[in-house]
């Protein structure tokens, strides 16, 4: 199918995703001022109805839900163009396009007349942040509802104007028309005419049934494509403000290493350089970023040694020792009973190393402070959290801080944290000028909030019929997402030790956090590797074994869809073929992935030849976008499978750049096939993360099938595979 083409209209007056250019617009806008900014569009007030889906962001922060007022989500301009507002951020996941499609669909306006403003705290409804594949799942319904209400009001206004009852009217292409004589119509622009209108609807109109959809569900090209292929798309580092200085910050050699002294005299001699110090924040400011970076290397600094004694080797015993807290995630049946039923017990431990987000755009922020107001442009997944944080830091009122996330060059969970923004704000305050902080790749690898190293102990049992009757799963520090098995197991317990992926005091030598499919990508590696091991113990092929232990019909359908596409017949592993399978339910998205690999026994090198993924995401808004996300997950996922690993020692991060942190390159690319399993009756589920979470397991299982070696640690580097083969 040829994708539909839409053009985003970049509105320079409002920086509609074109990013800001720093011209002297209003610094901060309160709610009512927003209405002014939004111009003479539809301004309506609605009766408060039953709540929309509680906002997921409420968990973090202030328990704020999405507003009930459609004005917060959209504006119909005097020209009939529609502008949507979302506190979500476009990180590359394609939410921008999907939201435009949902708005166009529900409001009945042409897709090409929908603009979107995202991630701007001054004009967008509060949002807890862009993570967890939740933009369409949670924000989508709120936007749809708002659009449905706006359409309802337009119909009411048209009813008076056209002298026809509401139920004799319909909407299409930005106009309300009389069903029986379609030439009698009023455009949305006519109806609003730039006037402020206040209407109340006592009942929320229903949203459109899927069968009536003409925009959503159709493969549609990304609307940000043109801006991104011309270099016009603005990222935070592309913001240029008058008088702006670039900062280069003095960094410690290791986490936990405190600054003892700094001799900045040589740096100060660099023409144009200004050295500033605020406690242990020492930085060089300069009108040229590269000159600042050069100058900071001239600072002679002494640091205390880091107290950390951890490294890649001793981290795993350490993780077992520091189990700060214990959560029983699920418990049913009785483990002793399960053990009694079992004729075979399968026990194994699994391990995962620290992994970096390594977004292509390093963390960047620009801060401008003007009196009691501040403006922030930042590569962040959470502009509203940043707004709170910066207001507090600078002692300003929250509404006086305007945070904008222009295009963000990848986040994957790593841009929930924003230490660079705090640095830029502190430096801007001292300098009295706008300051940009853009981390170098080395800083990015040092200050990233890594996917935590984690370890697992699994003890499971099979009865005489090869049914799984026992599952005792202990997860140390990965976080509990996707740690519950999708199989039918009568006696099971899943326990999480430690403080989740965010870590807890004394656990990790550096920051850790959510990493695309957090918790899940290592939980599924452990779980689905272990299921394969059980299939082997049962003497069954991995596909039949899974199907025999599943009753969920939706899951079975997905597994079957993957198997049909894959076409190969699984045999009991190791078959020598190199076929693998892994399945999961990621927060309601069901998927099954199958892979074929070739392993070079001499070098230990794994080449993934083919990956097919069948995914049931519920209703798919933009099939093109969904495919891109799944393909991206598969391709990105090869890295944490095979090479990505942070090397560290005594608080120092030894991985400093892409030479030692190998990301998947073109030569790695397998043949990728995606099957979108049709399930339009289920509300849209998440799509940005699910397909990456099975990659560790599917490749490990395929490697085992190829060479009869069960890799228990991620990443499965060539060296580790060679070593395992030697031990075989």
């Amino acid at each position, binding site marked *: 199918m040829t994708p539909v083409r839409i053009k985003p209209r970049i509105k320079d007056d409002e920086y509609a995703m074109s990013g800001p250019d720093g011209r002297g617009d209003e610094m901060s806008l309160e709610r009512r001022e927003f209405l002014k900014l939004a111009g003479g569009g539809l301004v309506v007030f609605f009766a408060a109805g039953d709540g929309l889906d509680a906002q997921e962001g409420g968990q973090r922060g202030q328990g704020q839900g999405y507003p009930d007022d459609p004005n917060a989500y959209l504006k119909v301009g005097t020209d009939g163009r529609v502008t949507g507002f979302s506190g979500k951020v476009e990180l590359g*996941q394609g939410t921008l396009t999907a939201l435009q499609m949902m708005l166009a669909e529900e409001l009945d306006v042409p897709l090409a007349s929908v603009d979107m403003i995202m991630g701007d705290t001054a004009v967008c409804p509060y949002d807890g942040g862009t993570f967890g594949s939740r933009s369409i799942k949670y924000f989508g319904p709120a936007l749809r509802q708002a659009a449905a209400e706006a359409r309802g009001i337009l119909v009411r206004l048209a009813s008076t104007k056209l002298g026809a009852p509401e139920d004799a009217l319909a909407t299409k292409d930005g106009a309300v028309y009389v069903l029986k004589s379609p030439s009698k119509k009023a455009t949305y622009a006519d109806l609003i005419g730039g006037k402020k209108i206040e209407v109340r609807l006592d009942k929320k109109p229903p949203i459109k049934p899927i069968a009536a959809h003409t925009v959503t569900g159709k493969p549609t090209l990304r609307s940000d494509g043109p801006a991104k292929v011309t270099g016009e798309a603005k990222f935070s580092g592309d913001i240029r403000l008058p008088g702006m200085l670039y900062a280069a910050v003095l960094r410690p050699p290791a986490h936990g290493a405190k600054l003892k002294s700094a001799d900045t005299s040589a740096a100060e001699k660099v023409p144009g350089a200004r050295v500033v110090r605020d406690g242990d924040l020492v930085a060089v400011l300069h009108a040229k970023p590269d000159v600042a970076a050069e100058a900071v290397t001239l600072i002679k600094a002494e640091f205390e040694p880091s107290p950390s004694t951890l490294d890649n080797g001793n981290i795993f015993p350490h993780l077992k020792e520091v189990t700060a807290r214990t959560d029983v995630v699920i418990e049913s049946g009785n483990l002793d009973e399960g053990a009694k039923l079992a004729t075979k017990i399968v026990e194994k431990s699994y391990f995962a190393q620290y992994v970096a987000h390594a977004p292509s755009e390093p963390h960047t922020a620009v801060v401008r402070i003007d009196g009691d107001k501040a403006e922030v442009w930042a590569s962040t997944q959470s502009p509203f959290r940043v707004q709170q944080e910066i207001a507090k830091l600078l002692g300003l009122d929250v509404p006086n801080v305007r945070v904008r996330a222009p295009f963000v060059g990848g986040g994957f969970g790593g841009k929930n944290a924003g230490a660079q923004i705090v640095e830029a704000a502190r430096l801007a305050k001292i300098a009295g000028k706008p300051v940009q902080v853009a981390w170098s790749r080395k800083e990015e690898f040092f200050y990233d909030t890594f996917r935590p190293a984690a370890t697992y102990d699994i003890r499971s049992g099979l009865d005489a019929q090869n049914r799984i009757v026992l599952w005792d799963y202990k997860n140390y520090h990965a976080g509990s997402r996707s740690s519950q098995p999708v199989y039918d197991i009568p006696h099971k317990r899943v326990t999480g030790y430690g403080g989740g992926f965010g870590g807890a005091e004394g656990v990790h030598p550096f920051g850790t956090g959510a990493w695309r499919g957090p918790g899940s990508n290592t939980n599924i590696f452990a779980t689905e590797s272990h299921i394969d091991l059980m299939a082997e113990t049962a003497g069954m092929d991995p596909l039949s074994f899974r199907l025999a232990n599943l009753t969920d019909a939706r899951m079975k359908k997905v597994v079957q869809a993957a198997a049909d596409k894959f076409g190969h017949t699984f045999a009991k592993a190791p078959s020598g073929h190199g076929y693998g399978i892994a399945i999961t339910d990621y927060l309601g998205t069901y998927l099954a992935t199958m892979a074929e690999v070739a392993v070079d026994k001499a070098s230990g090198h794994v080449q993934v030849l083919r990956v097919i993924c069948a995914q049931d995401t519920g209703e798919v808004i933009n099939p093109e976008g969904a495919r891109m996300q799944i393909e991206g997950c598969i391709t990105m996922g090869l890295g944490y499978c095979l090479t990505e690993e942070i090397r560290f020692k005594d608080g120092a991060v030894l991985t400093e750049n892409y030479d030692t942190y190998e990301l998947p390159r073109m030569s790695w*690319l397998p043949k990728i096939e995606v099957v979108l399993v049709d399930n339009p009756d289920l509300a849209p589920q998440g799509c940005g993360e699910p397909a990456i979470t099975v990659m560790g397991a599917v490749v490990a299982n395929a490697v085992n099938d190829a060479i009869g070696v069960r890799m228990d640690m991620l990443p499965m580097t060539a060296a580790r595979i060679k070593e395992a083969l030697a031990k075989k």
Partner: protein
Amino acid sequence: MDKTIRFKLNGKEVAVETSPERMLLWVLRTDLEHTGTKYGCGEGYCGFCTVLVDSKPERSCSLPVSKVEGKSVLTIEGLSKGGRLHPLQQAFVDNGALQCGYCTPGMIMESYALLMRKPNPTEAEIADALEGNICRCGTHKRVIAAVRQASGALKMKVVDHDAR
């Protein structure tokens, strides 16, 4: 010591007062406000900063500006003409060969250089030429498809930026 460095940028003569040792990337992004070219690693590993110097792809993060004196530099901003996308850019849009878009300028410039050398490359040749260009979002498959489309659909009009 600052020096006046002259070169052609997307067909136009430019002159910059700068230390000749500074890397071209920063001169482009800061002094000349051409922010389409991106920083990713500073050491030649990622390709985000790729530009063409006299039709050859170069990593601008590692190329002192003195090295382009008197030469012709083509950046991502120089490809589209009169508001129309270059067919290679259009192919990236049509194939969805971008997500966050941060690697995209470098990908396109490297592909552009490939198509100049080899107007009809195979998929393997495309992959090979782009091996030094990272994409964290995992657009690899579509990038290869985009370059194939561009090479098939157009007789790569080699834009002679000197003549423009």
